[in-house]
Every structure is written in C-alpha cells, then in structure tokens.
C-alpha cells in the first residue's frame, strides 16, 4: 500500500516535465504561439527565444526527471537500509556552479548585439512619424511635404499608422499624460511612452499587411481599448496614402494665418 503511494506521487512529479513539454509542443498547432514576425530584427529576437527555450527545456526536463527518479528509487517503502549519510560534495558544488555560470555568461554576452541593434544603434535619419500616446488613443503626426516635424504642414492622424516596407522607420515616441507602451507584436517592438520624454523607436518591416498596435503599460480604465493599426505598404502606396491624407487635411483648412499655424504646431 505504502509502495503504491510512492509510485503514485513519483508519477505525479513525472507528469510535470511530460505535460510541460507537451503543452509547448501542441500550442503552435492551435496557433497559440509567437505571432508572425514581419520585422528585420525580429528574427534575432525569435532566434534568441528559441535558443533559450531549448536551453531551459533541456535543464527543465533533466532536473525534473532526476527528481522523479530519486522519488521513485529512494521511496522509504522500497529502500532497504538507512539513508546515505552525506553532507555534500565539494566537486559537485564546483561543477554545478561553474557550468551554469559559464552558460549564463555566454547567454549574457551573446544577446548584447541584438539589444544594441534594437535599442542603441539608432539609424541616422529624421523621424518618419511622431507617435503621441494619450488616454486612450495613439496620436500620429507625419512631417508633411517638407519632411520636418513641427512645421505648419504637419499631418495629424489618430490610431492609423502607415509605414513603408523594407525601409528604416524612425518613430519619435511621446506621451501626453500617463505611461503607455507602444507594442507592435508582429514587429517585435515594445517601448514605454513616458510623459516628459522623447524616446526614439526604430524598425524595418519586411512584409506588407495590417497589424495591431497594443498598449502594453497600464494607462487607466480604458487601457484595453487603446487600439491602433499599423499598415505596412510599399513605398508607392505609402506616398499615395500620405498624399491623399495630406490633401484631405488641406481641403478642410481655410486660408490660415501662417503665424497661428506655427503656434499650433508647436
């Protein structure tokens, strides 16, 4: 009877690695997995994700199996004679300190380049668009025909971001009120928008299509509905869209006093 309970509990602990691996193996079949990546840097982020998944997966399965085996084998109902009297092992301590330390250090160094590409090596260009987050929308400001932000011909839009494909895009991210986070799941981009700060965000989209913009930092009761769309399109389509939007905005403006427009833009 006692032995049966030992078998039962060891098998329960065996279920942890078995079902754990099974969950990760089955999830992609139900599309519960990394969303499609359409960015240039996303490949190295996803690659790193898979690398860490493999590494931690091996450690996970190894340690959990060891645990199962010890429970199975050293069940008091089964074991003959007393427990092994051992205080520890200096050699083992050294081994299981050095190997993880080396692995972790390697992992730390290995990922630095990707991080620098995404967050530190900013492309030398003027911003493609300024994104200003506020409760609960994404306000967009394109530089207009003169290519410079902060001039009277700037184009103002909400939640409808368009960017050209296969080109560096530089976003200038601001917040008007509280913290928000500019999250583009398919472009593997996430950056908090902080009131009082201008934060550059850059990426290069590799495929055309329409994707979600999600707010990933709690910004109040309407946080869940702070939804935008990003449209990645060819340079021609992008220019055509920009021109159409620009014309629409111009047509609604009466002959404005230029000085007033400047004040407004700033």
């Amino acid at each position, binding site marked *: 009877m006692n032995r049966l309970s030992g078998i039962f509990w060891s098998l329960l*602990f065996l279920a942890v690695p078995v079902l754990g691996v099974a969950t990760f193996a089955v999830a992609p079949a139900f599309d519960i997995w990394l969303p499609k990546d359409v960015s240039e840097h996303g490949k190295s982020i996803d690659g790193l994700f898979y690398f860490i998944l493999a590494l931690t997966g091996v450690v996970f399965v190894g340690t*959990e199996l060891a*645990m199962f085996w010890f429970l199975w084998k*050293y069940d*008091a109902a089964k074991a003959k004679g007393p427990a092994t*009297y051992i205080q*520890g092992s200096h050699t083992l301590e050294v081994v299981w300190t050095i190997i993880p*330390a080396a692995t972790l250090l390697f992992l730390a160094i290995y*990922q630095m380049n990707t991080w620098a590409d995404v967050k530190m090596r900013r492309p030398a260009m003027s911003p493609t668009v300024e994104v200003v987050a506020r409760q609960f929308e994404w306000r967009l400001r394109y530089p207009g025909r003169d290519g410079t932000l902060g001039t009277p011909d700037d184009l103002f839009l909400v939640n409808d971001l368009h960017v050209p494909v296969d080109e560096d895009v530089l976003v200038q991210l601001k917040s008007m009120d509280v913290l928000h986070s500019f999250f583009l799941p398919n472009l593997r981009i996430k950056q908090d928008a902080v009131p009082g700060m201008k934060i550059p965000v850059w990426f290069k989209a590799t495929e055309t299509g329409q994707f979600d913009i999600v707010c990933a930092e709690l910004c109040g009761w309407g*946080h869940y509905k702070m939804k935008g769309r990003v449209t990645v399109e060819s340079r021609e389509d992008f220019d055509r869209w920009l021109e159409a939007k620009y014309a629409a905005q111009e047509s609604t403006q009466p002959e404005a006093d230029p000085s007033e427009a400047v004040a407004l833009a700033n």
Partner: protein
Amino acid sequence: MSIASSSTTLQTEATHQPLQRPARKPRPVAEFLSTYVFSKDHKVIGLQFLFSTLVWFLIGGLLALAVRWQIAWPWSDVPVLGKLFAQQGGQMAPEFYTMLFTMHATVMIFLVIIPILAGAFGNFLIPLMIGADDMAFPTLNMLSYWFMWPAFIAFGASFFVEGGAASSGWTSYPTLSTNVASSPGAGWGQTLWLLGLTMVGVSSMLGSVNYMTTIILMRAPGMTMFRLPMTIWAMFITAVLQAFALPVLTAAGFMQLADRTLGTGFFSPEGNIVNNWMQATGGGQPLLWQHLFWFYSHPAVYIMILPAMGMVSDIMTCFARKPLFGYRPMVYSIAGIAGLGFIVWGHHMFISGMNPALGITFMVSTMMIALPSAVKTFNWLGTIWGGKIQFTTAMLFALSFVSMFIIGGLSGIFMAATPVDIFIHDTYFIVAHFHYVLFAGTAMGVWAGIYYWFPKMFGRTMNEFWGKVHFFLTFIFMNGTFFTMHILGAVGFPRRLADAYHYETFHHLQPLNAFMTWCAIGMVATQIIFAINFFWSMFYGPIAGRNPWNANTLEWTAPSPPGHGNFDFQPVVYRGPYEYSVPGAEKDHLMQTDPPNAAAAALAAVH
C-alpha cells in the same frame, strides 16, 4: 520516547528557571486581552499573523477569481460579486477590473506573502529554533502585528470610498497614480493605498530589527551561526534585506503622497495634464518612482521566497532522513541571492525608457542571480538523492516547491534576456513567471510549513489523507492555471487588459483563458478542504507529542504547543541541524540537544 528521556535528563541537570509567577487576583478580561490580543508572546503573535494573513489570502484569492472571470468571459454577468459591486447590472466595469487586479496583487504581496513568511513563520519559529525563550523585544514584536491593522483597515476601507480602491497597478506608476483625475481609483483609493503600504513597511521594519537582534544575540549555548537551521538563516537574511530596502520604499511612498496632496512634483514632468487636470507644478520624472519602487520591490521578491526556501530545506531533510546536501553552499547562495538582489532592480525597466546601455548592466547582473538559485536547486536534488523518502503532506508540498521553482526560475531567464523581454514584457509570460515563483513556489512552501509545524502550533497533527487530497488538487489546478500562461505570453497576450479579444492577434485565445479560469475556480474551491482540515485538526486532530516527525531541530524538544517561555529546560546545542541517518547511531536522527557522548559511544561500538 528517547526525546522525552533526553530532555528530562537535561532538565534536571540544567539550572531550572521557575516559570510560575506569584499568584495574582484573577482578572479574566485583562488576562484574555494580554494573552490572546495584546500578547507579547512570539508564538501568539505568530499565530495572529497566521490567521490574519489566511483571511486576506482568501480575499486575495476571490479577487483573483473575479479577475479571471473577466478575462475568460469579458462583459458577461459576474456571479455573486456582480450584484455587490458592478455598476452596469451584473457586468464588470473596466475601471472595476483594473481595481481588482491592483488589489489582488497588493493584498497577496503586502497582506499575505510578506507577513505570513516573516510575521507568522518568522515569529513562531525563530525563538523556538534558536533555543530562546522569546524575541529580543517583545513589545516591538507586538507592535509589529498591531501596525498591520491600520494597513488592513486602509486597504479594506479603500474598496468602499468614492471611486473605489487603488487602480493603478500594485506598482503604482506615476503619473497614473499621482494625478487624481487619471482614473476613478486614483482619488481616495490611491491615498489609502499609500498609507496602507507605509503601515505594512513600519510593521516589517519592527519585525526585521527584532529578528536580526534575536538571531544574533539570543541563540542557545552551543548554537553557532553554522549550526542554525536553514529556516533561520533565510529569516535572518530576509530581515537584513528588509532593513536595507524598506526605507527607500517608505521615502518613495511619502514623495508620491506629497505629489498627490501637497502639490510637489517629484514624479510629474512640467505641464503634465491628465484627463484635463494638472496636478503638480512639475519638474519631476516618472522614471524616478520606478527606480525607487523597484529598489525595494526587487529585494522584496526575495523577501517573498527566501524564507520558503529555508523552510522547504528543513522539511525535505526531515522526510528524506538525510543531511542537507551542501549546507554551507546553501547558506552562501541565500546570501548571494540577497546581495545580487540589490543590483538587479533595473530588469523591471528594460523598456521603460531608461538608458538602454544601463539595461545591459542590469541584464548581466540578472543573469548572474540565476546562478545561486541553480545551486540551491541542485543541492535540493542532492538532498533527496539516496534518502529514505516519506511522502507526507508536508513533504509533498516541499517537493512541489522545488519542482515548481525550477519552472519559475527557468522562465525568468527569458525575461532577463533583454531582446526577448522586448516582446514578452508585460505579457502573460511574466504573469506565469511570478505566479510560479510566488504561488507555485512560496505558497506551496507555506503549506508545507503549515502541515509540518501545525503540531508545534496547536499540539495536534493535521489529517494526512485530506492533506494529500488538498495537495493533489491544488497541484493539478495550479499547473492548469499557470502553466498555460507561458504559451499565452508567447503570443504576446498583454496583462491588465479588461478585454483583449478585439485585437486580431489575440481574438482566438478566449477558449484557453476559459480553461484557465475553470482551473482557478477549482484551485480556490480546493482550499475549502484545507480550511476544514485546519480547523477540525486544531480541536480534534490526533495529539502530536513533542516530536511527531522525528526531526532534529530545537523546536521539537519543547512541549507542543510550547508554553510562555517556550522550553521547560535550558536547551544546549551540540551539533548541526541535519544529523539524520548518522551511521552507527541507534536512531536515525540525532537531535541538536542530544549530548555528544551518545553519538560517540554509538560510533565506537561500530568500530
């Protein structure tokens, strides 16, 4: 048998300290108040902490269920709770949802995990396990419990003030938290939240100085630092962490309070207008709060796990009948976690707008803190290797702590990797990670501790069969709820959204979330078994005796439950806490108080 005899011999040898006081006029009300309410006895205070935190554990669990309900079936009528709170019929308002997850985390962290580990177990176990008659400062100790009450009242009352309780997340990031117009809960709810937090801090600080003093100065004769059980080492290092980290949180809390009420601008930039309301003069920085908050709250993560690690180490050695594998490495790795714990706070801020070069520094220190955790895991595995494992309820919970901590530790590496964190930051991946550490880890450790020390607390053992049923169901439902969060996080499913299914990326995830919610409901329902077992065993469980588990440490030499003053003899310590299955010894455990000649004689007889 042998324990009773050894303690009686000691009792006659040691200078007997009379514990009876001169007779006084009976004053039943005053007696009752001083014994059970305003008690200065560390054991009563420990139990006061235990009962209070278990009540809040229930409240926090119900808040979690309400959160899960909205995630699984957004905008559907909420059963029971819907009639009490929600404004739109039985439906949950989004601001109510933000309040729920804010208060779930706040209650679980500040009113359950920290006080149940340090307050309940720390108080109950420290004097007993080091052989002291009480804490160094009994009055401070009493105050550390009673300072929790202003916090209980502030957090509890905040649900009923205008706008509801705090709703800017348990991290309370400005300017959402500092501007009173930013959300409904940012009014009185947030102010009460800050006051409650400060009171929890005062309580922890009073406990912390007391624990450090007691452990350093009041150990029994022969109890050297390296003969302390791991539980005490963990409590000691936790107390040090609290003493160093808490002042920063208190200062930050006061700054936020001043921003909200006095018009200062520590955390608001110039001209910051939220919802058409300008709160402060400006000139501040929202990131400053994040630095100060995480400078406390990252060490607090270790405050929330180290004591459980210590308790689990003691329980595993007892039921594997083996010495702890690598006692000193275990101590050093706790110290290493605590030391490194002070220089990793920035990993909460990789994408916060902090200088990305600084992110690299924090990434390296964060990778390194995985190392002592790995060492601890390997040593736990070494401890059960070659043992004689008894599958008691306490042991099962302790084993599951290790098994689940492996998952929680490994998933941390994903977030520590800065480029991967860009994608999974603030998604369900991090929610999975910290629930594996804090629920599947710490809460399992707490249950292990309750089942293990219950006989010492109440003189009776809990029912083993129902204990195992409780363990089995909790274990299954817990993994059903939390393991699936990993794959949800892999899709990028963001946390804290009242309804994410209108996004193309996440619209297909509702069935999975419904499954998780069913598991969560099962997990909370399972605790009914625990509650019944707990209270039934308190009164009707089998009488335990001094040492029901044949364990070695000092608390098992005292009566169960120990009277005021703990020991009925002066304990003298002759050896470390883990002398199980010593070759040649007549029984399979040598208690710390067993005189050395018994062991020496036994060894001599063999050779």
